[in-house]
């Protein structure tokens, strides 16, 4: 089939799979032409995996859409060529493109739920691909689809074939999308952030699958991601994009170990690496933010943010070409000063900072339980006498937090960490147990009955910067409202003064007082969110994944800011996260949750080193790490998270645990073991097994952080 299609479309099987030559892409808006990608070069050979990295707005998704020739009404290729097996795709007719898309080139998108049609059964959707492209009969297509569903390691392909998309989990959905992309044996597969919407352990499974399956099917990959760790795991070569241009391109090893562009260096400096914590190696954010496409500076677009900027050279408006770094010319950078920079000195230094002093106990959660009652009003339920069932969102939560301390609560979606936050904030009341804030048990006081100073003492920073501020009110009025509400100040002048001071604290210009949230970038919104949380001089701040929706370089700056304010005000921070590298970086103590239970807790050193709880072990193994000198033990979790409505008997983790002891774990509830002072694990494993555990993450010799 391939040969016939190649002939029909005039493709040359000996040419490289994909070649982008000086590709320029623009969008046309009311404001005129906006160049999105300029001067983009890329060659993808057979079986090669290329990573495209960059922050949002750098043009990486635009490149993918251009390769698919799917630019929408207002986008167009303004220069250069995209050659697929030697044939320029811009010269193809719509009919030829249709024959190509989905058969020789396929794409996997970020949101699995929105790439599957919710009204069609999965089998029917998948069967369309071979039926349309290869003219197979329904039965032949079904056979092929079932094979492919098994190939992407979905359990019980027959059941999935007959299911609707909403009946399977997110990870399974993404596997289905990948199966769909592979059905016609494509030569090139584009993956646009395929795991961003998924949990870490699920992500690890999908990445593993993508890697294996590309080899098995002889497909070339273009993997778009903002996560450098994932690129290291999956790709052979990497292109780093900044503001519409490739700034560095080379083999993964070259770029990761010897990056030669200040932006790439900046990216690596702003992600926490294993073994580094906030006191030893502070993150170094890149200053400023990416320019808007209409306001790109002359010369090097990274110039204004670069530490090595040289007036007259870097902002010279002459076209900035890429220059080869090594003799072969396979590693190139777009920088005029790359050979003048001392790259050893650019590595972040260890800097011994004073660890924060941990004060008195502020928050004590004592055997707290939160069950949600689900009333079943059906007749059957009444007859059987099971009118209400319980979702056990939090089961026996027990830990405390001290002044100035950062306690991280780690777990994947559905582990109950958000419920815990709701109980603390008084949006829900606990079913059992106590939550002591100072001398006051707040577990049963809903927020409406709390006094203003009690509310102000416990505040939250939300995850999504685009929802955290009310778009109808100005930034200033939103912070001012909090100050008045908590009774910190009431005189209008004094309130205004305090708001301006808070804006200073979060390093935002004072003019932002009058701004509406839509005029702010994501990072700036999150800073306002932090200012708002700290407006009532809180004792405890719950930070619900405060940086996970932000770009890497902004993440570092916001994290740093949060830490600085905490250090200054001696606030306790409960840091809810699924990102174990960030947690390793900034937490003092870690609480790992699974299905409503705390499965492990202890200091960072205790949790990140053996002995581990088997779940922590798997989580650690799933974290993508952007460092070539780190060796990881691979533990991929099988199966899905059980429903909290119907948890497994015995240990909550027994259905997925690689170290499960049959006949014990699935029958009896595990005991809470104290392994060291303050280090507790909820597990059946023998002490001897714990002692023999090996570290998941190992640093190679000579690692300098």
């Amino acid at each position, binding site marked *: 089939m391939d040969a016939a299609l190649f002939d029909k479309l005039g493709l040359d099987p000996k040419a490289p799979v994909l070649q982008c030559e000086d590709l320029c892409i623009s969008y046309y808006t009311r404001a005129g032409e906006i160049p999105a990608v300029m001067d983009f070069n890329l060659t993808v050979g057979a079986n090669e995996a290329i990573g495209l990295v960059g922050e949002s707005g750098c043009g990486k998704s635009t490149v993918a859409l251009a390769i698919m020739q799917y630019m929408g009404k207002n986008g167009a290729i303004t220069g250069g060529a995209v050659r697929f097996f030697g044939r320029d795709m811009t010269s193809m007719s719509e009919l030829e493109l249709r024959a190509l898309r989905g058969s020789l080139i396929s794409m996997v998108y970020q949101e699995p739920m929105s790439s599957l049609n919710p009204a069609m059964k999965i089998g029917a959707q998948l069967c369309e691909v071979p039926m349309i492209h290869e003219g197979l009969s329904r039965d032949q297509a079904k056979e092929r689809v079932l094979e492919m569903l098994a190939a992407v390691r979905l359990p019980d392909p027959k059941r999935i074939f007959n299911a609707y998309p909403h009946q399977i989990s997110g990870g399974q959905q993404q596997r289905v999308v990948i199966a769909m992309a592979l059905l016609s044996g494509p030569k090139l597969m584009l993956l646009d952030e395929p795991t961003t919407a998924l949990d870490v352990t699920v992500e690890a499974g999908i990445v593993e699958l993508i890697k294996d399956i590309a080899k098995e099917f002889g497909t070339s990959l273009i993997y778009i991601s903002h996560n450098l760790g994932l690129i290291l795991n999956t790709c052979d070569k990497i292109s780093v994009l900044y503001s519409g241009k490739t700034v560095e391109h080379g083999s993964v090893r070259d770029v990761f170990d010897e990056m030669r562009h200040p932006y790439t260096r900046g990216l690596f400096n702003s992600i926490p690496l294993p073994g580094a914590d906030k006191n030893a190696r502070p993150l170094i954010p890149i200053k400023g933010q990416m320019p808007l496409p209409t306001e790109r500076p002359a010369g090097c677009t990274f110039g204004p943010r670069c530490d090595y900027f040289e007036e007259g050279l870097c902002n010279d408006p002459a076209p900035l070409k890429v220059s080869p770094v090594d003799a072969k010319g396979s590693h190139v950078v777009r920088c005029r000063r790359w050979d003048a920079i001392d790259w050893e000195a650019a590595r972040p230094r260890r800097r011994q900072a004073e660890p924060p002093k941990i004060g008195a106990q502020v928050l004590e959660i004592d055997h707290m339980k939160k069950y949600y009652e689900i009333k079943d009003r059906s007749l059957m339920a009444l007859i059987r006498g099971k009118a209400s069932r319980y979702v056990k969102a939090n089961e026996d939560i027990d830990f405390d937090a001290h002044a100035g301390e950062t306690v991280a609560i780690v777990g994947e979606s559905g582990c109950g960490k958000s419920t815990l936050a709701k109980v603390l904030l008084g949006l829900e009341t606990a079913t059992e147990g106590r939550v002591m804030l100072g001398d006051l048990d707040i577990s049963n006081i809903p927020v409406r009955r709390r006094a203003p100073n009690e509310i102000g003492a416990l505040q939250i920073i939300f995850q999504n910067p685009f929802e955290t501020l009310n778009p109808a009110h100005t930034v200033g009025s939103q912070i001012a409202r909090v100050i008045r*509400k908590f009774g910190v100040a009431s005189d209008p002048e004094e309130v205004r003064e305090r708001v301006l001071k808070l804006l200073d604290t979060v390093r935002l210009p004072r003019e932002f007082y009058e701004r509406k949230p839509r005029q702010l970038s994501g990072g700036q919104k999150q800073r306002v969110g932090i200012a708002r949380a700290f407006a009532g001089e809180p004792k405890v701040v719950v930070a619900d994944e405060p940086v996970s929706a932000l770009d890497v370089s902004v993440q570092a700056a916001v994290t740093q800011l949060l830490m600085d304010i905490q250090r200054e005000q001696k606030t306790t921070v409960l840091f809810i996260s699924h990102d174990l590298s960030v947690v390793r970086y900034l937490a003092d103590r870690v609480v790992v949750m699974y299905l409503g239970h705390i499965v492990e807790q202890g200091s960072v050193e205790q949790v990140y080193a053996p002995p581990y709880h088997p779940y922590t072990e798997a989580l650690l193994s799933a974290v993508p790490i952007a460092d070539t000198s780190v060796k990881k033990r691979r533990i991929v979790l099988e199966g899905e998270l059980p429903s909290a409505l119907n948890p497994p008997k015995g240990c909550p983790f027994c259905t997925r645990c690689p170290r499960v002891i049959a006949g014990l774990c699935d029958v009896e509830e595990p005991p809470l073991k104290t392994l060291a002072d303050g280090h507790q694990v909820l597990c059946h494993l023998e002490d001897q097994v714990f002692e023999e555990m090996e570290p998941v993450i190992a640093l190679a010799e000579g690692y300098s952080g």
Partner: protein
Amino acid sequence: MSEATLQTREAPFITRLFTFRETRAAMAWSIGLYALAAIASGLGAPLFVQAIACAALVFFALNALWSVRESSIAVIGLALVLFWVLLATAAPLLPLRDPTAVSPAFKGLSEVLQIKTLLTYAPDMKLTEAQSALLEKPTWFGYSYEGETYTLGIDHKGRDILSRLIWGAQRVLVWASLATATAYIVGMLFGVMAGYLGGWVDEVISFVANIMLSFPVMVLYIIIITQLGASGVNVIIAVTFASAPGIMRIVRGLVLDLKTRDYIAAAQTRGESAWYIMLFELLPNARGPLIVDACLRLGYTTIAIATLGFLGLGLPPPEPDWGSMLAEARAKGATFHHMIIIPAAALSSLILGFNLMADGLREISLRD
């Protein structure tokens, strides 16, 4: 696409002349001033207040047309609506005849009517020269009698149609906007309560709304007006009963979506009362779709008021009212076509204006 990236073109001189700080604020001030002046003159303030209202309105109109220039549909719609609003506001200032007075021209017209009637019975009748001259003269546009010209002619009772049209526009617009505003206040209040509070509040409100929505609208109007009597206030009550359930449903749907946002959780976690959250956190963010719906609903309400007038259930005669003008024309329409065409065209243009405005605003809101 953020707003900052869009280059702002220079506003025309006239707009820049009046623009202080930014167009949005200028528009808010001018419409506020207009509303105050219009209400004051409605309560019997001296005539110059009306002039202030007109000036404020012209200023607002220029700014509003400039701010929707992106969408030609919105410009046309807004221009149509503002044309009528301006005429209605300026009615006391314009040299119009009394809309209810029977003019002397009625005598001339009745002669024509007589000849026409005679001709239908005796088509072969011989006409005198004076009679022929009368028949040849126009009876509507530019009808003149004893040296006085009636631009749009006179109706079968000899009243000046132009004057009735403009004064009628005032009544239609005032009652339509008052009725829509009342319906909106009621609908939004119940909608935000049903959406945000949920539970039994939602169940009760939704149930009542469903019952009201199951009534044919016309039947509802007729029942209410016949029970309460025909008056402006009762028209408002009738329109509110008919429209509020629909508005309530829209608001409820919007609120159900908005209340899951983090900023609502943020308001809850700082202990705001339910009313504060509903009125200051939720409603301002629902305004986009509501403004579009309000424009459409103004059109529906105009139709409703005209229909009520047509059925004789609207504003009591002899005050000019487009609906009752149409009803009167129905009887005489065979002889005096202009009596039907003029108010019907006016009514259609206003409703078209509202609908185009809604379309245009939706187009603009989708673009950003």
